[in-house]
Every structure is written in C-alpha cells, then in structure tokens.
C-alpha cells in the first residue's frame, strides 16, 4: 500500500497581536514545530509498520501454502535461486509451468475421450506433467498425478478420470493462490530478511 501525503502546516499569527509580544509568537511557533514533527514521526512509523505488515502478510500466505500442503520444499529451493538480478525467477518459472502444462492437460483431456483408453499414452503424458509439477513444488498436484499413474498401471479408466478431475481442481486452486502470493510479494517490495517457514 502506498500512501502519498502532502502536509501543509501554516503558522497562524494573530494580526491583532502586537509584534512586541515576541515570547507569545515564539511559543506558538515552537508548539507548531512540535506538532509537525510528531505528525511526521507517526506518519513514517505508520509507513514502516505498513511495510512490515505487508511482508508479514506475504509470510502468512506462504506459511499457509506450506501448512496446507499445496507446496513442498522444492518451492523454497527455487526461491533461494532468486537474487537482485533475478528477483522474479520463481514467478517466471510458475508462469512457464502453467503455460506449458496447459498443453499437456488438453492432451490428457483428448486422450481420455478415446475408447478404448490408451493407458500407456496417458501414463507417458502424465509422467511429463508430474515432472514439471514436481519441479515447481506443487505438492497436491503431484500427489494426484501419482494416483493417476497408479490407475493407469491397473488399467482403471474410471479411476483415471476421477483423479484427473481432482488434479485439475488442485491445479486451478494452486494457480489462484500463487497469483495472490506473487502479487502481494511484489507489492510488499524487496525485503531485507528472508522468511522461511518451518
């Protein structure tokens, strides 16, 4: 959150007050300065606290993504590859993942419409998809992929369709959550210390 505040404080001088009453003017001016300084102090304190709050919000979102099992250690591995020269590396990888894997998903969709089902082909496509999901740390998506492949192995068409639907749900949920996370992280700006969930 960015706040632009322009502050104007004007001194009030009572024209009816004769000039020779200097001590009175001085006191007013001193009081004015104090008020101005206090205001600026609280304003900057507010902005700093806001920044800390934003970073904390980002950390909270990140913690929950891990606690709820959406992401695993690999995501942290990717974050550690970021630096000043490559500050958005993880977001770039995730964007690439969603773009690339949409092709694989529509491929799976088509292949699941066939009759009879070509389980070998389904397994091959899913192997690729699982690999990419694993590379970004998409834990729940990866788990569904494993289940899907197990159903391929046992030639269970209904199981495949079910787990494919579930996988697509997890895939969509994760996308939304990561979009929010990256947006908040960008808004919060660069941070001095890295937040690392337990």
């Amino acid at each position, binding site marked *: 959150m960015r706040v632009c505040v322009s502050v104007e404080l004007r001194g009030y001088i009572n024209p009816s007050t004769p000039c020779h009453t200097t001590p009175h003017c001085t006191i007013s001016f001193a009081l004015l300065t104090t008020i101005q300084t206090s205001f600026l102090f609280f304003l900057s304190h507010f902005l700093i606290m806001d920044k800390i709050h934003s970073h904390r919000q980002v950390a909270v979102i990140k913690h929950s993504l*891990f606690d709820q099992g959406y*992401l*695993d*250690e*690999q995501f942290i*591995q*990717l974050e*550690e*590859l970021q630096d000043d020269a*490559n500050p958005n*590396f993880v977001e*770039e*990888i995730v964007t*690439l*993942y969603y773009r*690339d894997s949409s092709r694989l998903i529509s491929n799976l969709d088509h292949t699941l419409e066939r009759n009879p089902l070509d389980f070998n082909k389904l397994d091959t496509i899913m*192997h*690729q998809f*699982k*690999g*990419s999901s*694993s*590379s*970004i*740390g998409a*834990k729940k998506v990866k788990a569904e992929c494993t289940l899907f*492949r197990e159903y391929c192995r046992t030639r269970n068409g209904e199981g495949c369709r079910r787990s494919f639907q579930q996988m697509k749900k997890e895939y969509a949920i994760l996308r939304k959550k990561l979009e929010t996370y990256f947006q908040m992280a960008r808004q919060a700006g660069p941070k001095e210390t890295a937040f690392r*969930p*337990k």
Partner: protein
Amino acid sequence: MAAASDVFRPEVGSGKLHVLAVDDSHVDRKVIERLLKISSCKVTVVESGSRALQYLGLDGEKSSIGFDSVKVNLIMTDYSMPGMTGYELLKKIKESSVFREVPVVVMSSENILTRIDSFVIDSCLEEGAEEFLLKPVKLSDVKRVTDFIMKGEGKKGHKRSRSDDYSPPSSSSSSISTAFSSVSHSCDLSLPASPSALLSKKTRLSI
C-alpha cells in the same frame, strides 16, 4: 580434431566449466540453467538428445575437415525423454572418441526407483555415467557435481568405462548401493538401500 583430454579439462584461465544440459521439459531446462549459472558455469541447454548430438557434432554431419569440436566439460541429461532417452544419449557420447571422457550425469524423477527399476541406474553407471541425480535437482547437487569436476576428479571414483570389468547381475545390489551413496537424498541410509526406504526418506524430507 581436438584430443579427448582437451575437451575434458576446464580451459586454463577461463575458470568456468561449460555444461551442456539436455531436458525435454521447458520448466526443467530453465531451472537447471539457473542452477548451473549460480554455480558459475557457462551453460548450453538443448531440448533433446538429437539436438545434443547435433551440438556436439556427433550427428554424423560434420561439415568440413577442419571441424573444431565444441568444448564441453560436463553433460547433464534427463533420463526419460521422447525420442532418444538419456541412456541412449549417454551411450552415443561414450562411443565418441572426442567426447567419451566428458563426464555425463543422468537425472531422473523418483518414479524410476519406486518402480524398482534399478536396472536404469545400473545400466547408466555401467555405460559410464558419472552420477545419477534425483529430480527435482537441488543447488547442492549441482554444486557438488561441478566442484567435483573442477577438481579434475572426474576420472576417479566409481565411474566405470566399458573396458572395465562388467559387474554381473548378482552383484547388482552393490552397484545400487554405490549409486545410492552418490544420490544426495540418501546420504545417511545404511547400505544396501531398498527403494521403499529411499522413498520414505524422501517423504520425511518434504515439509
């Protein structure tokens, strides 16, 4: 034609290893490229085994007599790729007089292990792969491999060349152990390691 030893050792003064990475996944290519750049390597990334051979000039299409082999210090390849697998690429590299001394590292997802396909690891190591890495590959894995090669120790260790003794299937458990000892996730597993033990170790490692 450059001598085999020239393409193996890092160029004097350049300080940087030149690594050729091969992976059909766009996401994985981007990640491995970043991992290698952070490890101070010069990186060339290609999307398939055939592209890799093309790059190395091993596709049988050398244009002129004065063909200058590209200098590569390490090749990292994904195992399961459409078309040419990492294993097939490994074999082609080891068949080449120019590039056979270049260390090759094979990367694969744990599927290989859960399917108890130790044959894959075994055969890669038999063919002379330097190491077998579990995907997703970590920075620590890459740093360890590149450090190892920078020290010029690629020829030592458990690399086997085709002219060495072939380990018969009965001793395959020991070769799996060797493979697992070099796999980063299982450093403290007692040998021989079973695939299920490795799997549970991996589960414990995730958050």
